[in-house]
């Protein structure tokens, strides 16, 4: 791995972590008044995707989308302002944490209904197929999404039309408090079940960013070359409660050994530890990187907190569009 890529992955993960942990630290101020699902502990998948996707690739996500949005290049200021409900937010305060959008970098939207953006992503893939070129549509999803019928319908269509669509499943073994085994037969892993469709599938350790990067890079190359859709499963672990800023392992819904094992495998330390050991990174670089990130993140919070709330008149705006927003083809 090149030093550039090493730095990029470390930076990607640290930036996401810092944003999420700053939200957690400030959430109790009761100024971020919307449901917020943090990705602390799950940064590796997004960081790898961020290093591989172009701005002209199109991405969608679900309720836990901060990391995907940031990795794709979405504006940090606009995201934090959105969570603070300000008019400078990426959705002008209409959507909150679960509705992120930054079309300038190809982040086409995240929504709050489990599975809801999967067919939207496939439809984006259809539009890319007609237009030609080698851009791809990327759909971020959780393990619960594969339980939704719409996922299977959309996957069937993507396969049928050989669309340039990358499905990235972050399997953190839980849907809210519900373990995988009360929702899906676990004799086979998710990607093994999906392999039945006959598309390219692969899996990997979602806390090992280098492994994720390799698996993803391979899949993306195949898709760009016209190989049709691919489905990737990465196992990982969410550190904090499903929704909100706290830790909730006192509730006992996740086994202690599981918690210990996974939190010990912090994707950032794992990756940086190796890179430091074999000299691809030096501590000074990391410190500088972190300082730069802290500055950026603090600035984003300052930006959000000093932004105006949307004026009351905006409450009933945007129900209907007066004109096409996308322009002609």
């Amino acid at each position, binding site marked *: 791995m090149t030093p550039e890529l090493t730095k990029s992955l470390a930076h990607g993960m640290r930036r996401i972590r810092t944003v999420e942990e700053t939200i957690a630290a400030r959430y109790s101020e009761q100024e971020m008044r919307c449901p917020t699902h943090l990705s602390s502990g799950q940064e590796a998948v997004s960081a790898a995707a961020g290093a591989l996707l172009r701005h002209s690739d199109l991405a969608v996500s679900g309720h836990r989308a901060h990391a995907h949005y940031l990795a794709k290049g979405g504006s940090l200021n606009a995201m934090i302002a959105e969570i603070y409900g300000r008019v400078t*937010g990426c*959705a002008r305060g*209409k959507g909150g944490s679960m509705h992120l959008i930054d*079309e300038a970098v190809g982040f086409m939207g995240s929504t709050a209904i489990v599975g809801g953006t*999967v067919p*939207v992503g*496939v439809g984006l893939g259809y*539009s890319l197929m007609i237009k030609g070129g080698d851009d791809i549509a990327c759909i971020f999803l959780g393990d619960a999404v594969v339980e939704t019928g719409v996922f299977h319908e959309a996957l069937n269509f993507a396969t049928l039309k050989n669309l340039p669509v990358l499905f990235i499943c972050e399997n953190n073994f839980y849907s809210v408090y519900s373990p995988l085994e009360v929702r899906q037969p676990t004799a086979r892993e998710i990607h093994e079940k999906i392999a039945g469709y006959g598309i390219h599938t692969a899996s990997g350790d979602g806390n090992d960013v280098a492994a994720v990067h390799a698996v993803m890079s391979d899949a993306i190359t195949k898709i760009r070359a016209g190989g049709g859709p691919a489905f990737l499963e990465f196992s990982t672990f969410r550190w904090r409660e499903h929704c909100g800023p706290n830790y909730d392992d006192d509730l006992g819904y996740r086994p202690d050994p599981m918690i210990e094992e996974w939190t010990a495998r912090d994707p950032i330390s794992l990756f940086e530890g190796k890179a430091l050991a074999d000299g691809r990174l030096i501590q000074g670089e990391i410190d500088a990187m972190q300082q730069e990130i802290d500055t950026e993140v603090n600035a984003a919070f300052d930006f959000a907190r000093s932004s105006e709330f949307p004026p009351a008149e905006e409450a009933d705006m945007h129900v209907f569009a007066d004109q096409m*927003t996308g322009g002609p083809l």
Partner: protein
Amino acid sequence: MRSFANEIRDGLDQALAEDPGVLVFGLGVPDPKGVFGTTLDLQEKYGEKRVFDMPTSENAMTGIAIGAALGGFKPVLTHQRLDFALLSMDQLVNNAAKWHFMFGGKRSVPITIRMILGRGWGQGPTHSQNLQSWFAHIPGLKVVMPALASDAKGLLLSSIFDPNPVIFLEHRWLHNAQTEAADTNKPIPLGEANLLREGDAVTVVSVSYMTIEALHAVDVLKEQGISCDLIDLRSISPIDWPKIEKSVKKTGKLLVLDTGFKSFGIAAEIMAHITETCFRDLTLPPARLTAPDYSESTSPALTKDYHIRAEHIAARIGDMTDRDVSIEPILNARGAAHDVPGNWFTGPF
């Protein structure tokens, strides 16, 4: 003469020709029957990428339409029955209707969803639902219900090129309705009702196939010296309140016709709204004639009195105007069995 189905097909053809972003898909779109003739030859003309069949995956295909719209296209999705589209309410209501709003106006979703409303010949409970009130209740959806063949193409073009999601409801009994070839290359603006007949006895507000029955009733009554305003709504969201209000202020009497279930249906909103705005003008309580609050059965023996027909409308207007009316001319003009749109129809769909 051209049929309603021809007009729909020409509308699709024109849209596809005018704008390379228009896509047309749905179950059976390229098949030999072409969705009751409305999509014939389009795939041959515009290719398989722009005009295509689909899997029986109504929910995903709605989401795929949304995604294609976000990708710059203007998809038209067809359901052979509204009933099948119940599978797609999540994508329609949680995504399509709200996308522009919930992303603060960042991106509109210009999709058109054609749904066909079934009736008669044993369609039964799950092939005959007219759930327009559901769609009209959802902010962010437009709801269009053409009645006249001469309006079909113009309304469809406006729907396709509207930046918002539009539900376009085609009643199965209209596909064979005929019109003089109208110059309908022009879109008809959504939200403009059509005053089809003028009079001062009663304001009759109608949609979709009910307008055909209403025209018959109103014309027969005219010969009996009772003349009514007949307003064909054409779109129920947006709805042309000024036209209805103006008429009710003149007549003082409102009769609303709908093809859907009665309770919590669109007639209720029209009655409620007009009562709010024209209470002092009303000389009678507003009235409605709609489908009853139960499903259409399959056996023809159980559907004889299910649907509102011209004779019911005429009789009701007679009641509302305290006039004796004769429904004989209507009954005498009736040629076909009650469960088919005409004698040309021999089932099964």
